[in-house]
């Protein structure tokens, strides 16, 4: 446990020495990176000890606060969330050395590194805290450090706006969590987290709803995702990678941990999560498809993937409710593995998107183009991440989605149809997969393929080695999970036993056996592709690339005649018009020889910009009206208010 504490301390304080360095010196950032690396190694040692002994690691210290001891525990369930955290934090930290160097950002570089370390340490604490009070403290540090990461470039108007929305959202969620832990303490008798499967109480449903709101807000489930697109777009890329890859998963961790306390799970918990997961998945990816800002697009994909994770988790809850161990094991391991996988490929995508933004200087997809020639390695890494996030073999995204699919197919084996409706998530997942494919083909095709659409893209440069190496590491881990999934089975089993309590442990059968077949096909695919690819490359190696692309007879093609991001996505976006409400301006042509015209398409957030903003603006308008009426500047009225208030208070006392 001492290793874990040491890791938390090192990572949290990584940015502090930099504060004492001069604004332009490089010492602080290097020291921060080394401290983060050392802290991650300490944390990894702690996790390795837990996994090798299969005993949970515990630390209880006396605490002057009421409601229990200062308790920290490490078990396989927490380890699953911690492993990607270490990888993403360290790769992001190394990447940041060149992406956000101190001497180019003297104003905010130190702030960024201070809060980068602080949020990472706070997340480690959140994942190991077993006392409600300690959990909330760490949660709040994490939330506030996240705010400062998002507002790194606080001189920009849109960044400040995104930061405020995030702050409001996260504190609304925390409010629900306060209520949740108060109720939990009431039922279990102390603020300490109970062991798995202990609580039998009937009041569980209110606790679950509060948890769903509070943790769902952090995770970004669909109606609660309002802060996510803006915040992830505003933060520097390696901070976005951390926020999207790891921080939103603490919401999922909270839900998983919370539900493990209960001995019995009502079926509607699982159904609710399945419904929310399906909505997040489909509308998340549809919104992503409609975006033309690469980081907003990736942020919406986080919503989609949280939806997939929720689908897996919903299946696991249903498995508990209906006492179906196979359903529970497959659903939960799919959910947890997708947490890991999404952390890996999403941070890979954010980092490679960062290196594109670094080179081109714009987040607009339509400003890029043809970058695979200028940034060959970034392009390959982005392609790997894109294939992985679409859930295509042989990468890791397929493995976790496949586990969820397999879980969703389980109800077909039983003739009782109480949970037969759960099979409907199979086509839902297929639709999500198809749309994600369309979206990532669009991004990769528009950004990296074709001809450069702007001068900046034409003169782009490859990212330096210290940015490429961290991304390569992430891609290698993605491929490793995809090709050798069986190596992760013990970890997943441990976590399932943790979650389900004692009764789950006895039922672990051969649910994971088919993974060997998947891995075999993955290797065969790689071998076949290598043989065919090398042959084709060899036979075409001497052919010069000098012809022009066939333009159907047109002789003067120009880069701006290429298909754009919006035009590629248009037919699908129109199909999802009911949930997106895209705006289209102009573009109408009339007559045989139409004059020049302009077209603009934009898709604002369906919940934030279409529902919440108008409602809150209306409320603010009403309140202003009311204030102008009451707060009218006439002293006589104010005295009247005081007298009325006193009378009302007196009346209340008499009652």
């Amino acid at each position, binding site marked *: 446990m001492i290793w874990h504490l040491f890791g938390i301390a090192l990572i949290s304080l990584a940015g502090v020495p930099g504060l004492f360095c001069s604004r332009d010196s490089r010492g602080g950032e290097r020291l921060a990176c080394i401290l983060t690396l050392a802290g991650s190694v300490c944390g990894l040692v702690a996790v390795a000890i837990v996994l090798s002994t299969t005993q949970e690691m515990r630390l209880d210290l006396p605490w002057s606060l009421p409601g229990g001891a200062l308790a920290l525990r490490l078990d396989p369930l927490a380890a699953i969330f911690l492993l990607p955290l270490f990888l993403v934090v360290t790769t992001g930290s190394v990447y940041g050395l060149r992406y956000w160097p101190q001497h180019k950002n003297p104003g905010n570089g130190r702030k960024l590194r201070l809060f980068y370390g602080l949020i990472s340490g706070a997340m480690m604490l959140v994942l190991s805290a077993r006392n409600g009070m300690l959990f909330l403290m760490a949660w709040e540090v994490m939330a506030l450090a996240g705010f400062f990461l998002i507002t790194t470039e606080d001189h920009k108007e849109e960044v400040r706006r995104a930061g405020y929305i995030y702050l409001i959202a996260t504190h609304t969620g925390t409010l629900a969590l306060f209520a949740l832990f108060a109720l939990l303490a009431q039922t279990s008798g102390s603020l300490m987290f109970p062991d798995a499967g202990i609580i039998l109480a009937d009041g569980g449903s209110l606790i679950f709803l509060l948890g769903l709101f509070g943790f769902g807000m952090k995770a970004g489930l669909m109606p609660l995702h309002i802060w996510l697109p803006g915040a992830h777009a505003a933060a520097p890329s390696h901070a976005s990678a951390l926020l999207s890859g790891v921080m939103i998963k603490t919401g999922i961790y909270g839900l998983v941990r919370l539900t493990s306390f209960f001995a019995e799970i009502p079926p509607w918990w699982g159904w609710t999560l399945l419904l929310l997961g399906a909505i997040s998945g489909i509308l998340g990816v549809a919104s992503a498809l409609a975006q033309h800002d690469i980081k907003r697009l990736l942020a919406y994909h986080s919503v989609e993937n949280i939806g997939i994770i929720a689908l897996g988790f919903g299946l696991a809850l249903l498995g508990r409710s209906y006492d179906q161990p196979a359903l529970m094991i497959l659903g939960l391991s799919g959910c947890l593995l997708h947490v890991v996988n999404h952390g890996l490929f999403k941070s890979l995508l954010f980092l490679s998107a960062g290196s594109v933004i670094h080179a081109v200087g714009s987040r607009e997809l339509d400003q890029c183009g043809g970058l695979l020639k200028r940034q060959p390695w970034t392009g390959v890494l982005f392609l790997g991440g894109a294939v992985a996030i679409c859930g295509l073999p042989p990468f890791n995204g397929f493995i976790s989605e496949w586990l969820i699919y397999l879980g969703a197919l389980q109800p077909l084996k039983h003739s009782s149809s109480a949970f037969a409706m759960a099979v409907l998530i199979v086509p839902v997942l297929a639709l999500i997969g198809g749309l994600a494919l369309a979206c990532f083909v669009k991004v990769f095709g528009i950004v990296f393929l074709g001809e450069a659409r702007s001068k900046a893209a034409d003169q782009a440069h490859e990212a330096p080695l210290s940015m490429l190496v961290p991304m390569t590491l992430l891609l290698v881990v993605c491929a490793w999970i995809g090709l050798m999934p069986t190596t992760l089975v013990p970890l997943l089993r441990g976590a399932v036993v943790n979650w389900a309590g004692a009764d789950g442990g006895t039922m672990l059968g051969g649910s994971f056996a088919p993974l060997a077949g998947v891995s075999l096909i993955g290797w065969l695919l790689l071998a076949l592709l290598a043989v065919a690819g090398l042959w084709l490359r060899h036979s075409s190696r001497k052919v010069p690339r000098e012809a022009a*692309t066939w333009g159907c007879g047109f002789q003067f093609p120009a880069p701006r005649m290429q298909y754009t991001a919006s035009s590629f996505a248009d037919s699908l976006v129109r199909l999802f018009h009911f949930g997106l409400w895209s705006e289209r301006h102009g573009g109408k042509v009339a007559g045989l020889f139409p004059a020049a015209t302009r077209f603009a398409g934009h898709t604002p957030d369906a919940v934030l910009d279409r529902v919440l903003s108008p409602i809150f603006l209306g409320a603010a308008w009403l309140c202003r009206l009311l204030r102008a009426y009451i707060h009218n500047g006439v002293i006589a009225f104010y005295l009247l208010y005081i007298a009325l208030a006193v009378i009302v208070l007196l009346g209340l006392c008499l009652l």
Partner: protein
Amino acid sequence: MNGEYLMIIRLFLHLALLLLFAPLLQGIIIKTKALFAGRVGAPLLQPYYDLVRLWRKGFVFSRTTTWVFLAGPVVGLAVPVLASLLIPFGALAAPLSFEGDLILFVYLFGLSRFFTVAAALDTGSSFEGMGAAREVTFSCLAEPTLLFALLVLARLSDGLSLNTLLGSHLQSAWHSDAGASLGLILVCLFLVLLVENSRIPFDDPNTHLELTMIHEVMVLDHSGPALGMILYGAALKMMVMGALLVRLALPWQTGWWPSDALLFLAGLAGLAILIGVVESIMARLRLPRVPQVLVGTMLLSIFALVLVLR
């Protein structure tokens, strides 16, 4: 030891059937269309001659393209070969089979679509971009239908691998209450096959106007052996997806592998003739109509699933 030999022989038989007979299906379709039009038409083996001819030709590359342009044909050829290992050819069981391989089967084709579309976008041509956008739109709508159909099949069998899904129980299932569902998904799968293999009424492989193409326009810039790989890959894909349909329609098995193989090939030939007939008697749908037809097909498959779930 004996079992291993048998396994290897089955694997080779499977691959031999696939690799040798796939282009013949294209030949049958072309011949059927020619006969309908009152022409003699190209010989049945014309697709083979075409492949040999393309094999001997050289490459022409646009200066816009990168290595991704060549990745399209490579993945497009490798994926159907791998997918064929998962699906039974008639009564001949699939050489590789495990729980949940149906998902892998569907996702492998997703991988080939990803790279075909990426290769199209690599040329920077707006026509190829158009084709690519249409391809991803239509396949998004076709994929849930395919999975609904597989769900129906999984419900009727007691396993989750394609081998058990398309096992010998189908024969009795046709005669039971589930027969209506099987009939519905047979229609759905046929439509999915047409859409995925870019046939009329969804796409016209012989059209001459780039603006209206879907699949053909995506491979406009390919040449020589790379184009040959694409054509061969498309033929393999049709045979692999057709195998699903043929087994569903002809669930008999004789127990002797040569006759089983013959039955399977006869079924495929019948399917090819059916596709030829459809192409001869139908016009192509207008593009805005295609999503409507696909959503309609999806509803049909949902109905089939509800019938077996109730």
